[in-house]
């Protein structure tokens, strides 16, 4: 379980986040560029210094651990980075990259790791013969599989996947999702999925957190959240998902759109206030906290606050 409160720098990249993940859950964090979801992912793993608050993993505050102990804990919490090519050492053969987590955590020596690496490569749909190659010799889809293999090989309990599908063609996305799902089944993993792609998240996640401007604006189970969004931003995100039905899509294009304002929201204002069709004066002055509006649903919006 984790409770997090992260504040980073003057202009908060993350502000007042309370985020918890239970064992075996799949939680999705969705939002657009700059909302802080990647920062949150890194903070969860202790890769991002936290200006205030705590990140607790299985009851331990990551910030209080000495460097060596923290490194040791890393075996249990792994990350898949957004750009698989950038996250692999271009000068290391992938066999070595995959063996590295095993050796670093004393699960094997460089020599004995070879069999485990071969097994893992097979598991993710690659061949053990690939171990001798360098990252640039693989296709995008293959590199994503390598990234998955590296995250899984040391037997973690928690995996944070940062936009694992965004670099892939739609047909590959399904395959990778299946792989991730089967790995989760097999190994009883806990997933935190970071994405800006709603349809993908809907099938996988048990819970969804919507982020905007460094804050969580809504949380809940995907089916309800997408069917009846409580926060206007969530509604906007749902509306933006392309629909593979030409007649509906054409009709949508002819719909009138609310005026889109440019410019940054004021520091304390609700981050959506510049674009929100329901914006009220109070929205520019302050941001409400995340409040429970139904069983398992929370939203941070003045629309759901009790009138003063």
């Amino acid at each position, binding site marked *: 379980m984790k409770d997090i409160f992260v504040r980073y720098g003057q202009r908060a990249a993350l502000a007042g986040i309370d985020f918890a993940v239970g064992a075996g859950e799949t939680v999705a964090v969705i939002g657009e560029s700059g909302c802080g979801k990647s920062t949150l992912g*890194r903070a969860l*793993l202790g*890769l991002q210094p936290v200006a205030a608050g705590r990140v607790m993993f299985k009851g331990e505050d990551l910030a209080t651990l000495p460097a*060596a102990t923290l*490194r*040791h804990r*890393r*075996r249990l919490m*792994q*990350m898949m*980075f*957004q*750009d698989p090519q*950038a*996250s*692999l*050492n*271009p*000068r*290391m053969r992938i066999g070595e990259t995959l063996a*590295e*987590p095993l050796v*670093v*955590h004393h699960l094997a020596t460089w020599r004995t790791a070879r069999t485990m690496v071969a097994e893992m490569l097979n598991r993710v749909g690659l061949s053990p013969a690939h171990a001798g190659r360098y990252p640039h010799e693989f296709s995008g889809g293959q590199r994503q599989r390598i990234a998955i293999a*590296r995250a899984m090989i*040391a037997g973690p309990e928690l995996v944070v996947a940062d936009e694992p599908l965004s670099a892939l063609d739609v047909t590959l996305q399904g395959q990778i999702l299946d792989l991730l799902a089967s790995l989760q089944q097999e190994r009883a993993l806990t997933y935190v999925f970071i994405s800006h792609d709603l349809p993908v998240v809907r099938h996988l996640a048990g819970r969804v957190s919507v982020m905007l401007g460094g804050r969580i604006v809504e949380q809940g189970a995907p089916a309800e959240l997408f069917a009846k969004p409580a926060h206007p931003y969530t509604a906007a995100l749902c509306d933006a998902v392309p629909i593979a039905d030409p007649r509906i899509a054409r009709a949508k294009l002819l719909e009138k759109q609310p005026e889109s304002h440019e410019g940054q929201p004021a520091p304390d204002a609700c981050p959506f206030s510049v674009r929100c069709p329901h914006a009220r004066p109070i929205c520019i002055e302050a941001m409400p906290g995340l409040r429970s509006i139904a069983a398992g649903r929370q939203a941070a919006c003045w629309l759901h606050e009790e009138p003063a």
Partner: protein
Amino acid sequence: MRPAAARASAILGAILLALVLFAAVAAPLIAPYKPTAIELRQRLLPPAWEAAGSSRHLLGTDNVGRDLFSRIVWGARISLSVGLAAASLGAVIGGTLGLCAGYFGGAVDAVISWLIEVQLAFPFTLFAIFLLAAFGGGFLPVVGVLALATWVNYARVVRGQAMSLRSQDFILAAQSVGVGPARLLRRYLLPAVLPSIVVVGSFSAAQAILTEAALSFLGVGVDPTIPSWGAMLNLGRNYLQTAWWMAIFPGIAIAITVLGINLLGDWLGTRLDPRAG
């Protein structure tokens, strides 16, 4: 520079360097005389093509009758080994300090950067002369001093590169796997900065050879009885009017070596450019 011209100059550099290397390696075989063999009756003979010259001494002899050609050929050993040793030692010191400064940042970087600034502000040759005069000349002290002269070149380049690399995803990914700093430096950062080190190395070697020559010229170089080109220059300057060959030929040898290294280093630099790789 157009590729053809660049390649041509690289080949020229390689040829020059190969010549010097050959001389150094094959010295016992191609030098007709021992470099320290004094033969006073043959002193101050001009090169063989001059009227007073003798075919037994191709480039003439110095003031105590030692064959110049032999001394130059043997001298290649000194210059090359000094250049290589100084460049290598400088690379190790500078590379390590640069990596640590760039990767760890903070206090470590502050200290190392300060050291770099101090060294750059210093009139180094003066300092070197002082050091060597205090400790006497000799091969090891000279190499040490030369390494001290060049480590800064490596450190600055490596530090900058390490700083920009450390925020890259593949470093972050390795950290998230739990890789410790030792392995990160050795297996992730070092291979990435190695091309730069090689390039700096080639120029440092040239710089070291020149500086050694200068130090010998000023009398604080390696042992003057061992034929270092710089020492020969030093000796020859007193005889410029009367026996110009004593200074000119060692000078040409130095120029050829440094030119070869620089041409090759230039080409290496463009080839190993990390932006292209």
